[in-house]
């Protein structure tokens, strides 16, 4: 009954292609921006794929100077950019404007050919990671922030998983007075916006000496995530065959042993999924990090501060964002198998 006719098949393929395009095209353009030089950024229309090299047109001028022309691709041909014979100026210009790292002396040496052969074009390979280097160079806070983000995410996963899955197990397996109230309470803390507690939390963490620390930040991020973890795992624990657990008890296994050997492996996908949520909460948050940290910023906060409210130099912020995105993607990629199992036995 699941055989598709040709119309359904076409419709599905189109939907699929549309989905992938809508997700991928903005990403491609964005990645290209992160590899774009300052000059590339002034170009319009924008390229879908980054350029690997830059071409300039050089005319020898009287004395030791050269006039440099660049074609912006607007159809008006080469535009005069600068006229100079100073090695340092050329080097800086090539680095800032074209992301090309070539020494000024080498440039002058190349250009001297025009004295004999007349005006000509020169192509130079771009330093592909110029924006990335620049991001970490402009913002001295960026490298420690990357480390901080990893630490706070791990803390959050650890706290949420330990406390959350034990609560999830209790809710799934025990009938006790206050179980309903507990469910409601967990729902409330899960929904509770972290921004609502961030400011008083800051005051409290200052008293505890945990302000501006990653542990302090993780304590906040764990508030919704413990509840979320318990909710995700409890529904899985309910689904796990109770007869199997009971069989294990009959064969003399203790409740703890049964939990470790039978229940936990079965619940692993759920725990992996909730860890992903914990990670994403910690990694992606900016507002609480803004309130709860001072010197020890997280990467997401650094990227937020990098852009300010202008668009100039956005290619550096874009490069920083790529650094921010990558670990999140890798993490998602690592646990995709478990998400797939949750998803209903789809192998990914």
């Amino acid at each position: 009954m699941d055989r598709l006719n040709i119309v359904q098949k076409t419709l599905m393929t189109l939907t699929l292609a549309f989905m992938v395009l809508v997700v991928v095209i903005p990403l491609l353009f964005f990645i290209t921006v992160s590899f774009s030089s300052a000059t590339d950024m002034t170009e319009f229309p924008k390229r879908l794929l980054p350029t690997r090299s830059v071409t300039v047109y050089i005319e020898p001028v009287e004395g030791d100077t050269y006039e440099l022309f660049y074609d912006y691709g607007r159809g008006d041909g080469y535009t005069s950019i600068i006229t100079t014979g100073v090695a340092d100026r050329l080097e800086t210009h090539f680095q800032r404007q074209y992301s090309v790292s070539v020494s000024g002396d080498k440039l002058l040496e190349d250009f001297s050919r025009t004295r004999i052969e007349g005006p000509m074009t020169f192509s130079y390979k771009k330093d592909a990671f110029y924006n990335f280097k620049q991001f970490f160079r402009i913002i001295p806070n960026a490298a420690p922030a990357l480390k901080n983000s990893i630490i706070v995410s791990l803390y959050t996963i650890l706290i949420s998983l330990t406390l959350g899955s034990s609560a999830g197990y209790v809710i799934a397996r025990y009938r006790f007075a206050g179980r309903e109230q507990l469910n409601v309470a967990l729902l409330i803390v899960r929904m509770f916006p972290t921004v609502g507690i961030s400011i008083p939390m800051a005051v409290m963490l200052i008293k505890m000496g945990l302000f501006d620390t990653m542990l302090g930040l993780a304590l906040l991020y764990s508030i919704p995530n413990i509840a979320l973890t318990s909710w995700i795992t409890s529904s899985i624990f309910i689904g796990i065959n109770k007869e199997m657990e009971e069989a294990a008890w009959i064969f003399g296994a203790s409740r703890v042993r049964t939990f470790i050997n039978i229940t936990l492996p079965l619940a692993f996908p759920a725990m992996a999924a909730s860890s992903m949520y914990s990670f994403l909460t910690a990694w992606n948050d900016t507002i609480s990090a803004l309130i709860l940290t001072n010197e020890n910023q997280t990467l997401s906060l650094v990227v937020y501060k990098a852009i300010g409210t202008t668009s100039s130099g956005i290619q550096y912020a874009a490069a920083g964002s790529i650094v921010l995105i990558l670990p999140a993607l890798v993490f998602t990629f690592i646990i995709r198998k478990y998400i797939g199992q949750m998803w209903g036995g789809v192998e990914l």
Partner: protein
Amino acid sequence: MKHTHRIPKEIMPYLLLFPVFLYYAVFWLVPVLSGVKEVFTTLDGTFSLFSNFRLMASSDLFGQAVFNTAAFAVLSVLIQYLIALLLAVLLNRKFSGAKLLMFASMIPMAITPTATAILWKTGLMKDGWINTILMGMHLIQVPIVFLNAEQFSAVLLLIVVDSWTVTPSIMIILIAGLQGLQKDQKEAAYLFGANKWMIFRDVTLPTLKPSITTSIIMRMIAALQVWAISVMILGYSKAPFLVERVAFYVDAIPGVDTSTKLAYTYSFMTTIVVLLATVVYLKVSRKTGHQEKEAS
């Protein structure tokens, strides 16, 4: 059976839950109470029921922040949900591109909001890639200056950005719900002469209800707290939201006594709104909720 029982069974759940209780008592209840205390005391420390709310209501852009937050939450959830449901139903088959789809759908969800904001800012700039695409397809002749969007169009712009981010993951959640659908359930329905629409309405939708419930709750809560994309794409005060105001008073004008009070009050207000949305939602879905509990 071995009888090495050390702890009575009745106490066990409470014992296991004790660390969780303790955690929430210290790190949730205490800050919440002190936050509430701040909201109901004036700058000189005397109790006042309304003074901070009056301060907030008379602060710049209060009305707009409330309206924008409500509009954003309702519209974005509605739009994303309808698109995701449509896509989920269309794509709920075993097909060769499933891996690719899953992978691509996971990307926007995995991207940090601050990075999403920068991604879209590079698109929304006058010489950005959105104008490149639109002009390349000859849909427009002159570049649109998206970043000058004001008032409601600014909110709509942010809804588009938000939808790009979360719709694929909502779709994944819904497909997950659909995959949980027992095949024999469907076959049985066919056997009894049900048509496709009846199966969708009576078998598929009820199966999806739990995943629908969860995704709507999650989305609403997140949508009510939108701020990063607003501030980073448009700047402070261009498209004010409740949490955007909190960030504004913490980040843009820190250190002033009234801005601290305003930040407290705005975050209190956000909390109340989020909790109200939760309660309203639970009331609406109470019926299904009870059925689920009885079934489990």
